[in-house]
């Protein structure tokens, strides 16, 4: 069992993250989409939320999908999670066509893909204590028969990974924690479940700048430790640049640009990307408010 001290992520002992994965393109594909489309409504009142998008996420890659509100990011993530049906197109999971036609198959699929949502306050069952939340995860991934000591050891390790103290969390309810702590608890859940893919839908947009850095570093650490694919969905292009290997830019349901983080952010080609970057308030260059059109 790890001790509390050895696994605390502090600026001093934090390992240098592997930020540029050279062999990413040669890795096997984890999740691939071909012409994925989602249309809401029928007849005359149709809204095309996601419009024939193609993507290929490799194993161990940290990909971010960036776009403004209403660009279809969340709809796409819901389709990837199997919470929404795909109107047209195909999604391949680990090289095979994804089949979630029955409840049993869907449950099996969810063992491989997990999510962290935007609002930590509504992500937990308010009636369950934190122990129950974590125990459920152990039971879900085949640890039902483990001894009590083993289960506590696993839970302690998971809490320790996200810099929380298990002893202080026992017998507490999720709402007794702060937003940042709750989001870290979500990451502890993912650490226990060890899915192939983690879908993080704006995990830092509701917490302050100070806890945000901690969460981002934990996601990077999680990827390095377990090798899972992380899809980071955000509207903040700065965060995506900091954290990801590959960036997809989404506008009106379509991917307008795709490439490595350095290519997309430092040398953007699409006008939309250029606008997104110029709209972020920066410190070292003046922010131009005169060009804003309502």
């Amino acid at each position, binding site marked *: 069992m790890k001790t509390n001290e050895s696994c605390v992520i*502090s*600026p001093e002992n*934090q390992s240098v993250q592997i*930020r540029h994965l050279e062999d990413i393109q040669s890795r096997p594909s984890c999740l691939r989409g071909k012409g994925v489309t989602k249309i809401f409504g029928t007849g005359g009142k149709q809204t095309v939320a996601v419009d024939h998008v193609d993507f290929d996420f490799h194993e161990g890659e940290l990909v971010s999908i960036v776009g*403004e*509100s*209403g660009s279809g990011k969340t709809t796409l993530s819901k389709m990837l999670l199997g919470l929404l049906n795909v109107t047209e197109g195909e999604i391949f999971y680990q090289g095979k066509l994804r089949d979630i036609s029955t409840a049993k198959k869907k449950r099996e699929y969810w063992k491989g893909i997990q999510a962290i949502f935007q609002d930590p306050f509504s992500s937990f069952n308010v009636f369950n204590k934190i122990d129950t939340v974590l125990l459920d995860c152990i039971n879900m991934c085949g640890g039902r028969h483990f001894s009590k000591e083993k289960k506590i050891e696993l839970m302690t390790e998971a809490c320790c990974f996200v810099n929380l103290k298990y002893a202080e969390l026992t017998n507490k309810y999720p709402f007794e924690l*702060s*937003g*940042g*702590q709750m989001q870290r608890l979500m990451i502890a859940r993912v650490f226990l479940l060890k899915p192939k893919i983690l879908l993080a839908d704006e995990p830092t*947009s509701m*917490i*302050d*700048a*100070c*806890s*945000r*850095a*901690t969460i*981002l*570093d934990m996601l990077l650490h999680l990827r390095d430790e377990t090798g899972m694919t992380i899809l980071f969905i955000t*509207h*903040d*292009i*700065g*965060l*995506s*640049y*900091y954290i990801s290997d590959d960036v997809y830019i989404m506008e009106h349901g379509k991917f307008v640009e795709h490439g490595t*983080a*350095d290519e997309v*952010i*430092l040398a953007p080609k699409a006008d939309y990307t250029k*606008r*997104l*970057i110029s*709209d*972020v*308030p*920066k*410190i*070292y*260059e*003046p*922010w131009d*408010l005169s060009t*804003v059109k*309502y």
Partner: protein
Amino acid sequence: MSKTVLEVRGLTTKYITRFHEDVYAVDDVSLTIEEGKSLGIAGESGCGKSTLALSLMGYYFAPLHYISGEIIIDGKSISGMDPDTVRKTVLGTEIAYIPQSAMNALNPTCKTRKFIQDVIHAHDPHADNKQISELAESRFAELGLPASVLDRYPVELSGGMKQRTVIAISTILKPKVLIADEPSSALDVSSQKMVIKMLRDLMDKGYIRAMIFITHELPLLYNVTDDIMVMYAGQIVEKGTAREMVFDPVHPYSRGLMHSIIVPEQGTRNKKLSAIPGTPPNLKKPPEGCRFAERCKYVVPQCRYNTLPMIEFEGTRTYRCGHSIQHLKEVYRCEDE
């Protein structure tokens, strides 16, 4: 010398919980804002930014209670007034507030035009509906909002549009001071820019005379406000101009905040972000001495029991720390090297 619009001296307010415990959320806060200036307040969640905003309006209702201090708007003291008088004579005309979640600030069952009429009737029951409509239309046009918004329900507006509508409504009576409490945190970058442009327009056109902008996004504050004040656990820890605070923060906490900035610029990617470890203190039992001592890298034993006052330096700046300015600068210089 320009005129002072808002002056606050030693404001202390507390929450009284169900179990009769006192939570000192705003502790001895003093600030002044001059005509045409804006002040940014930064700090992490739970440090008392929003409570300070509520306290500044002089509008106290349980569990928030006023303890001491003075709030002076344009020469008139509003502290100690009863809530009903404050609501009728101060809110909207002297000081206005933009809440964090504009999405919930509008009435879902009435159109914007009706909502504006209600707002104005609350201050002047005899106001003519036609004149109100004309005022609303001209103000919306000046602020770049389409007139069609007036005849729509809030559900028909996008998030950014709702936020701008709320701003237009809260400043319709030309308040002297506007408090914007994280008006852009829930918006994407493009809508955020529109909201900021609108706030700047309001200042430039003279509809508001001073502004307080609360957020945890420091690059945003740097681009929007003239001065920045950093709060920690209910107290001000450092105050200075935006430039000084971003490029040369003195207090260890302000420095920690500046180091957690992420912007899409070359060099961000390989920079190590230094998050401040630990959690803020429990304000039910605030620690004696420096409140930041528990999380501070440069803590020395006397930090934990010496009560710290705000110390002035370089003429205009103030900070609250047990270490001398020379010592801190020396330590930072060594660290950077």
